[in-house]
């Protein structure tokens, strides 16, 4: 547990890493589904609502049947039902995606709160069973990291495996071609004989199902209870992860991890007003990683001198601060978001060359391309 701490990384130890992975999982699940949906041209602002529905129905079914498997499935089905509403609105009726998504969120929040009150109103808060950890033979015995990385719950493994799976789907299969075409140039897919309706339906249902699984995860892995609005913005964080992840599976993984890791840091250091030395170190590392990335991955066109200069400045000052450890008192809310802000800035500047699917949020109408 303490190798990292011994090296001077303070709060960034293996316990932090383990928490970070668990907190990343629900965001990652929702983000991977949303990635597929957005590549097909549908933006689900209602991702938060899908998650909430997943959390509630997973709780309800697990409580009712005592079976975690039934619980997970019920959660997924709940999210997909809501996604069906979304698809009916946006794919069939060609309604505005953003307005529909906001509506989905309101409905999900109201409905789960209402049902929860109706069903559990008079009962004491019942705790449901949670999914246990599975340790993977051999690798879980690796000192320090084995236990953190390979002694986790199965849904966590699944969520991380979904990333290469989504990559394979998008870039190596006909389905992936069709999905990308549906978001980029639906007329081309349509005239090639691909049904845009079908692709977008599948995409929205995938987003609904995976987001709901993320919501279910909160209940049956993390907290074992349901609370109103318990997703607490994770659906929106997943939307952010897709944008900062540049609509690419591995980018989305990186962005989701940054969000999860920051969350974990906040949990570990609830109220410490002194900026730990390690924070400066991490700032320097992130800035340096950005520099290396910029130099290695040669961008098209002019090098971005201002970005490079800024990153160098941040990296150098990070190293200086790390080495000199000045006594800096900042409200913990401020400094704890520092690595988070920086990482997002780094991702955002990489986004400059990334592109949103051109037809995102636009309904497809034949002859109007």
């Amino acid at each position: 547990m303490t190798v990292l701490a011994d090296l001077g990384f303070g709060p960034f130890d293996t316990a932090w890493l383990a928490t970070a992975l668990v907190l990343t999982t629900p965001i990652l699940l929702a983000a991977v589904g949303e990635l597929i949906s957005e590549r097909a041209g549908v933006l689900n602002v209602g991702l938060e609502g899908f998650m909430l529905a997943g959390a509630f129905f997973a709780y309800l079914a697990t409580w009712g049947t005592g079976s975690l498997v039934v619980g997970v499935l019920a959660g997924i089905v709940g999210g997909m039902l809501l996604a069906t509403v979304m698809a009916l609105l946006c794919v069939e009726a060609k309604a505005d995606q953003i307005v529909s998504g906001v509506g989905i969120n309101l409905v999900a929040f109201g409905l789960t709160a209402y049902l929860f009150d109706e069903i559990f109103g008079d009962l004491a808060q019942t705790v449901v069973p949670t999914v246990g950890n599975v340790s993977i033979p051999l690798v879980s015995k690796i000192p320090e990291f084995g236990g953190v990385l390979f002694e986790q719950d199965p849904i966590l493994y699944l969520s991380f495996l979904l990333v290469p799976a989504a990559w394979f789907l998008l870039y190596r299969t006909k389905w992936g071609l069709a999905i990308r075409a549906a978001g980029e140039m639906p007329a081309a897919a349509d005239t090639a004989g691909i049904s845009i309706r079908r692709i977008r339906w599948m995409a929205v249902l995938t987003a609904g199902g995976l987001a709901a699984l993320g919501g279910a995860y909160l209940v049956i892995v993390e907290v074992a209870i349901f609370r109103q609005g318990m997703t607490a913005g994770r659906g929106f964080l997943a939307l952010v992860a897709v944008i900062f992840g540049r609509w690419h599976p591995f980018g989305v993984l990186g962005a989701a991890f940054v969000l999860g890791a920051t969350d974990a840091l906040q949990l570990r250091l609830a109220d410490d007003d002194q900026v730990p030395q390690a924070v400066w170190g991490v700032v320097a590392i992130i800035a340096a990683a950005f520099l290396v990335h910029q130099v290695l991955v040669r961008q098209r066109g002019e090098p971005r001198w201002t970005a490079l200069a800024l990153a160098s400045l941040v990296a150098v000052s990070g190293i200086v601060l790390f080495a000199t450890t000045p006594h800096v008192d900042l409200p913990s809310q401020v400094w704890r978001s520092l690595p988070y802000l920086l990482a997002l800035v780094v991702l955002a500047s990489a986004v400059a060359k990334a592109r949103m699917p051109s037809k995102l949020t636009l309904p497809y109408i034949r002859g109007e391309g």
Partner: protein
Amino acid sequence: MTNRGAAREELATGTRAAGSRAAADGQAVPALELVGISKAFPGVLANDGVSLRVARGEILGLLGENGAGKTTLMNIVYGLYQPDGGEILVGGERVAIRSPQHAVELGIGMVHQHFMLVPDMTVAENVALSPSRSPGLSRLDDVTRSLEELSSRFGLEVEPTAVVEDLPVGACQRVEIIKLLHRGADLLILDEPTAALTPPEWRELSAFLRSLADRGSSVIFITHKLDELFGVADRCTVLRDGRVVGSVPISETDKPSLARMMVGREITLRVDRPMVEPGEPVLEVDGLTLVEDGRTILEDVDFRVRAGEVFGVAGVGGNGQNELVEVLIGLRSATAGEIRLGGRRLDRLDPSEFVRQGGAVIPEDRQHEGVALELSVLDNLLMREFDRPSFSRWGVIDPDKARGRAERLVAEYDVRTPGVGVPMRQLSGGNQQKAVLARELGRDPRLVIAFQPTRGLDVGAIEFVYRKLNEQKRAGVAILLISFELDEILSMTDRFTVMVGGRFPRVLEADEADPETVGLLMGGEAERA
């Protein structure tokens, strides 16, 4: 009525003297028959009771002015639009073609007028999008191999791993054709597939279409280039304002009478070049060089365009024309060299400076660079001059004045549209082009860069564009005309050069040039490539 009678009689007697079996079958059951197809859009009747037949083994040319309804009709056959009335018979059977998938199942394939390519995918991925037997994996290796084979067989050069958005227009056109060839079809519809092909590519394609027809496939071929039609079609049907005005065997007609049928009036296919005494140089380019990714795209290009002169750049597409235009208008920065417009150096990458200095440009790919499809005709016409005090004050636009100006432009440039408020995408391709012309020429420029300005225009509209350009020339505007059509260069320009591999080997006076000399200069490229 008489035309339809003639068409039927002509079908009965067989289309080509040699086309024996195929045509005989065709007489029994036409591959495609349309009966009284109608389609209305808000404000326009795009097709008005259109009937036509294509026999098996026949190549039918479909002609008509811009906006006559050709694309609409073919989109109906391909299942993209549902007709308001009429019947479609495929192989003698009545069908309601619900979707492109359905059309594909019926053996119909189509090359669309506007590219149906996903810009951020590679050529191979675009081809792999089309349905084929292997479901699951995209099998890009197989597609790549078959692409290489197709492209060498038909002389259509495509790079399977190239990303479509980096390709010049000519290459996109080849990709579209290859897509159709790869998929295979019994009834091929080609909607202006040649607007950006080179003559040798067209020769290969037409020979291939002929061989397909001889094997019993049918082809509907839309073009504005009458010469092409005479090389390949058996028969041709002419549309005007959504109605069929005639259908004639190609052997019984000639260019002037087809042109007359299309436009409904006598039209001159040649324009007279006005003689204007050239003035001061307006555009001066010295030693312009562009190197990208280690490739030399432009090499030491020098030229001058003087006021009241049309300077031409001939040459096969893809020899750096696109890049030259982008550098001139400030979309790309040159590696070396100097550009002066009206004596002022343009050295920063800045398209708005180009416009402020009186530059106007008619781009090659109007749908991507020329117009904003979602905006109204009015916005498109005035987007370059909204800041003029004549219709805006402190940044607020006076809607009446703007509308008045847009309506005047629409009338002057004969843009056929139900109104200036409709979105640009509702206009036919040719009319979008006229709108670009109206915007660019309508604000009294000093220099006009016209890059393939007549691409996709009907004969009447071409005549019109030439007239407008010549008017500008008489008014002392400097014109740089870049065109892949040799005829256009020879008839319009005062001096011209041939662009070969990013260089201008020699400037010719229009009078000393003849097609042979130019052909030889252009041929230099064929050897180099």
